[in-house]
């Protein structure tokens, strides 16, 4: 069986009196696509922000493989092998597509404190960059300035930059947000491909996509975990139906 890659123990984050993430204990298994769903304000993005080091933790621990990464800053989390894509497109708008991925790829060099050798001669970085461009299917616009690309392409680039850092674990915050149907299908296909040799933690509102690719589901509400299990288990759960799926037709089909 696959082993636990990432584990949170009573992970908590509060903003003043509000517990945005409230003692969440979860395990993520290697090689799985684990989706986190829940209504707006459930704490999904905050949870991802804690994992990625974008936000400091209020209480609880995070363990990645053998390492305790609770107090890691986001650059340390990235160096540990956890990549992250953002819900709101977060790229280098003035850079070309290639340069965007390059910046990600170069971060895997032992150090970038080199002042006199031309960056473009780092062949390993170049290879990683090309691989990332290929994976996110943007080879055709490698020299296009990111600003000038379509929204869907920017979303793909968002994932490409992360892939260029060659992470083991991917934190994907609504990768399909705002995408058209065709683009969506393409990204879902990409996620399937990535799942072959990566662990994916996915926040997504597109339920069709979630049910079609996720192997495990966690439902969050008000900062707490309502239910974790396989897709079928979650669908069958009464609590989930009441809290989240209850008024949708997904639940009706489940009964």
């Amino acid at each position: 069986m696959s082993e636990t890659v990432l584990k949170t123990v009573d992970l908590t984050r509060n903003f003043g009196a509000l517990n945005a993430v409230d003692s969440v204990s979860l395990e993520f298994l290697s090689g799985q696509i684990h989706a986190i769903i829940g209504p707006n304000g459930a704490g999904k993005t905050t949870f991802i922000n804690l994992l990625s080091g974008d936000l400091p933790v209020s209480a609880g621990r995070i363990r990645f493989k053998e390492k305790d990464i609770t107090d890691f800053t986001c650059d340390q989390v990235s160096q540990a092998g956890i990549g992250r894509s953002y819900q709101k497109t977060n790229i280098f708008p003035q850079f070309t597509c290639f340069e965007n991925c390059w910046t990600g790829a170069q971060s895997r060099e032992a150090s970038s404190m080199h002042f006199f050798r031309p960056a473009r001669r780092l062949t390993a970085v170049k290879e990683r960059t090309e691989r990332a461009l290929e994976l996110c299917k943007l080879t055709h616009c490698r020299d296009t300035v990111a600003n000038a690309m379509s929204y869907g392409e920017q979303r793909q680039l968002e994932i490409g930059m992360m892939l260029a850092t060659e992470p083991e674990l991917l934190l994907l915050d609504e990768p399909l947000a705002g995408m058209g149907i065709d683009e969506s299908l393409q990204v879902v296909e990409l996620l399937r491909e990535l799942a072959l040799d990566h662990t994916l933690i996915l926040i997504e509102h597109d339920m069709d996509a979630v049910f079609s690719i996720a192997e495990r589901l966690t439902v969050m509400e008000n900062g707490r975990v309502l239910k974790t299990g396989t897709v079928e288990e979650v669908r069958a759960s009464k609590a989930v139906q009441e809290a989240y799926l209850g008024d949708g037709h997904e639940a009706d089909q489940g009964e």
Partner: protein
Amino acid sequence: MNVSRSVIVFLLCGVAALVVYPWVGESFYIELVMRMMIFGIFAMSLDLLIGFTGLVSFGHAAFFGLAGYILAIVTPESGPVSIWVALPLCLAGTAFAALVIGWFSVRTSGIYFIMLTLAFAQMLFYFFNENSALGGSDGIFIFYKPTIKIAGFTLLDLDNHFSFYYFVLGSLIASYLFLRVLLNSPFGQVIRGIRANEARTRALGYATFRYKLVSFVIAGTLAGFAGFLEGVHGGIMSPAHLGWHESGLVMMMVILGGMGTIYGAVFGAFAMVYLQDWFQDLTEYPLLLMGGFVIAVVLFLPHGIAGLVHQISSLLSGARSGAKDNE
């Protein structure tokens, strides 16, 4: 980070003109061109921060002036000091000051970074302004230009205006090439990432604080190099050299010249130094005209003088070679 071929041609023409100038120009203007070149180096160093790292430093003159003061302090009243002693001390001194100031400032951003760099520079200003041993507000003379000797043989005599002119020109070119190489290096890639989107740069795995600090130290040291040249050239260092007025002036050079191009900062320096002189001859209110110039550039040349040069030179080369090397 490539410069289009037409701009390179333009820059080479500029260098050729500067090489020829001492033979044809009046000595007053040769002095003025030296000042332009020194400020060109100073402004380029600030462009590394403003145009490439996204750090708007409002205290950059601190390093410029500090290096000049170090030169003044290490030059004895009895004779010249060797450049092999003076220059390393000036550079090490400014690098250290930049490390200390940067250590505190670089962790902030935006308006707070501006305030901190300004505050540190003003501290240095008042230190030199109130220090009577160093001439107080009158400043301090540098009686002798440093010597450049190897084994007793004089390589270059800086007392000779001709050779000092070429020393400054060589420094200008070397500084430009240094920054170009730096910006194409892995380090350059990271600082440009920081300017474009610092949060994402960090998320990709870079400890951005370290890169910003190193950039700050490099820029400060290069400003120190310019300050060293200014000290040699002018023969006097006064607190005004590190005041906020000077910091503002060099910032205007960068902005008017065109941020994020390096060579634009040199254009800015040339334009500002020249106009300062010209407006002074023209009217009793030179600053009024200077204000008008600044407004005109900001309104009509959004990419500064460098943007204009880029347009003109690619138009010219386009007319000549069928737009082949337009970007």
